[in-house]
């Protein structure tokens, strides 16, 4: 019977942790957050300029052929507060505030992300 945790296993775990750490570091954007972009099926559904949004939160209802979501937005960022999807992963996601952060509702093919200055649409394709 093989051991339960070998040196090779430790190496594998370490490699994965390093890959993820590098990934986190390189994708962390230094851009200042500029826009909230809502996309369904890969097409832009709506976008909001953070500067034009007040401190008071607004609820945006997103209705697609897949279902309904409610997104709460203010000048800091966006938070999914309701979804009629099955897994509710998007609702459990924390509020996004930084450029490059994203909330995904896979069953509804919906993504909400924050774009920074300049890089917005070139990256999302």
């Amino acid at each position, binding site marked *: 019977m093989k051991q339960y945790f070998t040196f090779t296993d430790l190496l594998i*775990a370490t490699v*994965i942790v390093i890959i993820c750490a590098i990934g986190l570091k390189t994708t962390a954007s230094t851009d200042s957050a500029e826009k909230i972009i809502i996309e369904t099926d890969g097409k832009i559904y709506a976008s909001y300029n953070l500067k034009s949004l007040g401190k008071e939160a607004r609820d945006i209802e997103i209705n697609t052929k897949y279902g309904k979501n409610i997104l709460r937005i203010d000048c800091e960022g966006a938070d999914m507060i309701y979804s009629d999807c*099955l897994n509710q992963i998007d609702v459990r996601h924390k509020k996004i505030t930084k450029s490059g952060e994203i909330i995904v509702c896979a069953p509804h093919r*919906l*993504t909400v992300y924050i774009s920074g200055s300049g890089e917005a649409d070139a990256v999302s394709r």
Partner: protein
Amino acid sequence: MKAKFVKLGMFTALAMALQWAETLIPVGFSVPGGKLGLANIITMIVMQLFGGRSALAVTVIRCLLSAFLYGGVMSLPYSLAGGIMSLALMKLVLKLHGASLTGAAIAGAFAHNFGQVLVSCIIMQNIYIINYLWVLGFVSVGAGAFTGICASLCLKKISLNKGG
């Protein structure tokens, strides 16, 4: 031959039950989308007892049945991509010198996340989704270690009761 099919069917049912039972665990990981991947314990057991092809069959059938039972057909591409990627990498890792099921499970859990994130990127055409992978990657190390050790322990019990 018949006995093998009966056993594979039972393992598939067990994997589906575990997949459902997993949803009862209150969200232990604070990472959205993170889960233990208990069904992978069964995939690993089948892989070790009956080989890769049988494990592939069990995984694909489980994905198909679960999609209709709990996830909705929309979830099928995600679970298939995750399941197949994970099985392929686990098979590969076990060929490495000195790797045990635990290492295979850790790599498999990461491959599962990778497959799902990749499919999400393609379906939703948004490369930012890759940011989910890094956080889920950390979870996969813990979850993989857990399921790998579970599978090893189960296999030890099963090999003691051979012929049963």
